[in-house]
């Protein structure tokens, strides 16, 4: 397995959000995580990426058997963890191209790989951006500044395609997208599916999973996984709602 989360307890500002979450994601697997608001889905995403102010009080998260919880966010990224943000932030004054190149070369350098030359890098970005409908003009602009909601999400997938992570966590990548934008993003994600890459797709809605078909679906409630199943579980949730799991987690 690639990712193994064992009995993870997490507090944010003294409030318990994750309560003994256990989850494994196999190599090459696409795992959907569904659940109601406040069930801890985004917290899980942030804890995996290494955001500050998330206090792990118990449990562990292992990537290829190695605990990642004490690693700085950049170290995790270099080891292959990638978070596609629910709300990608705007970074004024930092051109998207500069950002992409700095990130890619920082990761490569840390891994002891050769840095990309400018022409090679330009070609890589052009080819990848083309698939996602990310224009040259967007690449020249500051990261996410003045981007529409859809453009921001496409930019996240572009980063993922450039950085080629081993574990991608997609946090409500469908939120705020209309159906056309959703299709573009989903196609971008599907293109990145590979036996070497695992994905955790976090969503409220079954709709995204019509386009990114998961291998497995986990349901979260009150800070833990309460049910796991195949892709049909998503349809069941869509029909019956989350109310049935409210008691199980208590």
């Amino acid at each position, binding site marked *: 397995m690639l990712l193994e989360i064992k009995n993870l307890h997490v507090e944010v500002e003294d409030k318990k959000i994750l309560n003994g979450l256990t989850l494994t994601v196999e190599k090459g697997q696409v795992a959907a995580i569904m659940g109601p608001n406040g069930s801890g889905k985004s917290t899980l995403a942030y804890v995996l990426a290494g955001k500050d102010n998330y206090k792990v009080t118990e449990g562990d998260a292992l990537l290829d058997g190695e605990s990642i919880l004490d690693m700085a966010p*950049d170290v995790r990224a270099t080891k292959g963890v990638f978070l596609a943000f629910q709300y990608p932030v705007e970074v004024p004054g*930092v051109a998207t191209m500069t*950002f992409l190149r700095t990130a890619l070369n920082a990761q490569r350098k840390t891994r002891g790989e050769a840095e990309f030359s400018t022409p090679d890098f330009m070609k890589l970005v052009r080819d990848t951006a083309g698939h996602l409908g990310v224009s040259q003009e967007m690449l020249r602009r500051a990261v996410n500044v003045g981007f529409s909601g859809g453009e921001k999400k496409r930019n996240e997938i572009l980063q993922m395609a450039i950085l080629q992570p081993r574990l991608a966590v997609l946090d409500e990548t469908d939120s705020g997208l209309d159906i056309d934008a959703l299709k573009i993003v989903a196609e971008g994600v599907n293109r990145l599916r590979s036996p070497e890459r695992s994905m955790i797709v976090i969503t409220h809605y079954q709709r995204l999973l019509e386009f990114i078909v998961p291998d497995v679906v986990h349901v979260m409630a009150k800070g833990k996984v309460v049910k796991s199943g195949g892709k049909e579980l998503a349809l069941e949730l869509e029909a019956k709602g989350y109310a049935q799991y409210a008691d199980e987690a208590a």
Partner: protein
Amino acid sequence: MNAEVRAIKTPAEQGLADSFAGARGRLPGKGAVAALREDAFKRFDASGLPHRRVEQWKYTDLRALMRESYPLAALPDAAAKLRAKNAGNVLTGVDCRRLVFVDGAFAPELSDLVPEAGLAIGSMADALAKGDPLVAAHVGKTIATDDAALALNTALMGDGAAIRIAAGVTLKRPVHLVFASGSDKPSSAFIRSLIVVEKGAKATVIESHDSGVAQVNTALELAVGDEAQADYFKITQTRALHVSSLLASIGSRAVFNSFAFTSDAHIVRNQSFIRFAGEDSKGAIRGVNLLRGKEHVDNTLLIEHAAGGCDSREQFKSVLDGQSHNVFQGKIVVQPQAQKTNAKMMTRALLLSDEAEADNKPELEIFADDVICGHGATAGALDPGLKFYLMSRGIHEKEAEALLIQAFIDETIEEIAHEGIRDALKFAALRWLGSRS
């Protein structure tokens, strides 16, 4: 209260008085110049070094910061000139006319004196000694102020540049005034320069200061004629106790842009007195300060709109690390006759350390009723959300910070029209960022 005769001088004030007493006979200039010096010294002597109870010096208490006064620098010898040779290399790669001053004294043999039509270059000491009419017409007359640090400069002014750009002439290359220290002993220099940009002329002037342990009090009087344009840069990277006064008077339909870049400093006070004396002129007064350790940088502006229809923009940004201290005081005065003034001032400080201190004091004094004026000030840390976003992509913490700091600084540096100078300052900022450990 300050007007009372002070019985007790600090050691530094006593040292300055001794310097003046010892040098007054041999400082350049007789007659009116000597009288100007005597009068200025009397004013300095009455007030002493500016201190925290003097409003404009509240955050830069020179009396406390200046424990002793260093002896006046001797004329530079060959060894001193050799040491000064590489000064001002921040602009390497920009095609400039370099005029080099060592410990304040003009060094013609290190300077580029290739003749250019409409450009007259001289040494201030020579001009004062000879009673040069241009100098007589301007020195001490550009802006009226009772500032004690400037009075001290006037009393002890030694050398500097005296430059005139004739009416209608556009200079082919920027003029780079390179102020270097050559002395290997602590010394003081009182530098006075004059630049007259006559009607319709255009000039770019850069003043750079880099020196070792020294005390430097420098002043530049800049007269920008009607329809003229002056782009003025001051790059200060010096371990000296450095006090600088810019006195600029702007004519009608003229353009004045200034940019002050300060990094790797010790104690720097840049005070700018800028007067929009003629109608319908435009000015942009900007600056970037990069501080760390216990560095202290103070930019104090007094912008006077004395004529109508002028636009001025003031924008200063500072990055503070360590226990450094940045001061920005900006006062815009709009006189009753200066209707249709449009002035906007903004200052922002980025604090990288809990121990750094930024004092921002913007002020408006408006006596006209048909004006647009505004000011703003911010001080804050790097946005942790932005930092996390960059780091989550594999960018190391220091590099993520550097990218965000660079973006903060570049917003102001990008405003520089001259590509070479813009790139040189961007590079200087990058170098500063790169040396953050």
